């Protein structure tokens, strides 16, 4: 049985997977248009390139043509909003209700919540500062300019295991959470997976709740087949 690492080595022989990093001018353009409250330009670049490996988009993987990922959702912005959430009043931790979002309205933290989040975010800030250093160290230079395959290898390095946990969690949250938190730009994460997002105040009609939407046949190949196999074996 192949290990994950062996698999990646095998993949690296395929010409299709020989991805090049973003052209320098494109990286410069991104850096110029984005300013961050917490991240330095370099930290942002490393976080952007790392999370784009976790949830890739069209610029990251030829299999994702037409399918936006963490880069397009601006997960880096989501993480920066979280890390700087306590700099705002009200803090940018909990969006308000009842219909939520887009208005930039947040719920002020209670004394107790503020205490917990101060500790938690301080730890996260340290994890991001240190994590970027670790990835650069594993890369022997600037992680963000490495090739796609190298970046995958670096992320799977044991020394990056703790940071990968955090990046993975935030890549998921930043891609699939409400845009009010800074990610999921233009609802790209939801559109990609046919999730409609909040339905209030309209909700759904009786027919929408009760009736079939009609046939929609899955493509049961690749990893989908493997997961179905695993689930079916339970």
């Amino acid at each position, binding site marked *: 049985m192949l290990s994950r690492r062996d698999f990646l080595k095998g993949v690296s022989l395929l010409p299709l997977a020989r991805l090049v990093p973003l052209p320098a001018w494109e990286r410069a353009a991104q850096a110029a248009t984005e300013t961050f409250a917490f991240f330095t330009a370099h930290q942002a670049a490393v976080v952007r390139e790392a999370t784009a490996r976790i949830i890739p988009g069209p610029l990251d993987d030829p299999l*994702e043509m037409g399918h936006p990922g963490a880069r397009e959702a601006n997960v880096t912005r989501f993480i920066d909003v979280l890390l700087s959430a306590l700099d705002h009043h009200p803090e940018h931790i909990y969006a308000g209700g*009842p219909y939520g979002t887009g208005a930039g309205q947040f719920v002020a933290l209670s004394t107790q919540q503020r205490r917990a989040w101060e500790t938690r975010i301080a730890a996260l800030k340290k994890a991001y500062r240190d994590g970027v250093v670790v990835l650069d160290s594993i890369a022997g230079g600037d992680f963000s300019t490495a090739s796609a395959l190298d970046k995958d290898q670096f992320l799977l390095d044991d020394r990056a295991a703790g940071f990968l946990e955090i990046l993975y969690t935030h890549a998921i949250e930043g891609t699939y959470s409400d845009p009010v*938190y800074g990610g999921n730009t233009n609802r790209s994460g939801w559109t*990609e997976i046919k999730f409609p997002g909040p339905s209030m105040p309209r909700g759904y009609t009786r027919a929408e709740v009760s009736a079939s939407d009609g*046939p929609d046949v899955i493509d049961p190949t690749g990893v989908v087949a493997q997961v179905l196999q695993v689930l079916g074996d339970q």
Partner: protein
Amino acid sequence: MSSRAIVIGSGAGGSTAAMVLAEGGWDVLIVEKGRNYFGDLRSPTPATAFSNDELKSSASRYFEDPDVDLEPRSFRRTASEANRVVGNVNHLPSTVGGGTTHWDAKTPRFWDIDFKKLSLLGPMPNASVTDWPFSYGEIAPFYDEIESLIGVQGDVNLLPTSPTRAHAPRTKQLPMPPGAPQYSSVRLAGGAQTLGLHPFPVPMAITSQPYQGRPACNDCGFCSHYGCPIHARVGALAPLRRAVIAGAEVRPETFASRVVWSGRRATGVVLVDNTGASHTEPADLVVMAGSTIETIRLALLSRLPNPHDQIGRHLMFHWFTAGFGVYLTERIHAYRGRSTSHAVDDFADPEYPAAKLAAAAAGLPYVRGGVLELGGSQDPIAEASYYRFILSTALSGVKPFGTPLKQLMRASILRDRLAGIEMISEDMPQATNTVDLDPAVKDYRGVPVARITYAPHQHEIVSQTTFIPLLTALIKASGADVGFAIPEVSSDLYPVAAGDVPDGKHIMGGMRMGTDPATSVTDAIGRVHGLDNVVVSDGSVFPTSGSHNPTLTIMATALRNARQWVGLRTAAAHDVLAVTGRDDHGAVAAAAIAGSAAIALRRLKS
């Protein structure tokens, strides 16, 4: 001068008690350790900070849940092992409204056999099965009253004659008809019918039409584990509203750290505000309603009378089993609707043929599964996290992130193509399943946290082994291409499960009601043995767990008991009599008469 009651906890049980006491003329203070996300509680539709927001509602953000970094709990399976977990152990929301701010609001009733389990079904080896101090017949009118109060939809004529109506007879139609059947639930209900089971629209505390100032539910889909943005679904907020209208004060961000008592009476409660400042608030009646685990913790912190070492014992969780149906040719869209709309009761019946066979084979007097909730799913962040888990652990030769994750999200086998089942199985009471104070772990205030020691009884495992194949068969019969069922919590027999710590949110026992102080903590009306004015009003008073969602029964029990506490004000006379040196037989008689009057009044009203 009115008597002062302090109600500790603003959830289902506390709010119900507060309503009865405030409307009965008591001066009521409700303290809630969490914060308040609602506006004017006198309104049927107060402003709310809840919304269709998965991130805010997720377990990692602690919006309505206690923050585990500040208030952890510890967990171990047996008293002889070290803590397995310090963190989230079946945490319920800690906020005004308690668990009902984000409950699934399914409101089946417990059955006649649940209240007289020992008498009707006999003893279970190595379990502390007992009778409740009242019968189904006695609590039935209180069920009716709570169903009207919180606004339950459903149709009693669609409940199966057997087993549901045979074991939980009804004399009244529910206040509102069932809402739209949910497609995912209907698909699984079809599978259930194929197996000869009896699915039905499950009663739930969600409006299907405008009701007492609240709008009809619009099936927004963000239901279980989300706060309702429009109050189509309430729970505690309905009685809390009446309590506040009757003059009760709700004081959030206030932690009760100790009940102050001496002799047979409590005199007050030590309250800690959000700055850490504490004072003793005087009380003529103390109502403990912080939900099972926190109520036990407070009882132990207060060193309440415990001559028979009963406080915290017989802790029960429901024993959950999860079924997954995956449909490869269509999307099931369980993101629309009220989490689930249908249920099946057959597996809760100890007379179900497979259950009888399993009991005979295992040498047990009986075996029960529980109610099945048909048709639930999950939202994208939870879905992606699940794929991440699978990719990182179960598959070899696949990159644990990247395009594999994206492909799974697009296929959505565990969200849009998923129709899930939860089986909520009876959990046998055992003296060895306990809550006590952790000797080492403290909350951020420096107060010892609750330590949970819990392992399932043989009955639960036999039941699970019996019903897992039936759940899978039901799912397959519904037309699902892949169907399987797994335990929600690992055990010695099933080391692989969805989780290692019980997290079903149905938490009962530990302050069990009974008539014998040697085997119970509270008396037949939920009053702590040995104290005249300390009562309990949450699921901790349950002597047995039943096979159905507990909140309706928590509220009905609270209503029944609180009606009898209204008369406890006369116990104030008890002190006067004691001071003047007279014997207290007269006061006891007066209290008994007042209690009888309260019961008579209740009968007149119902």
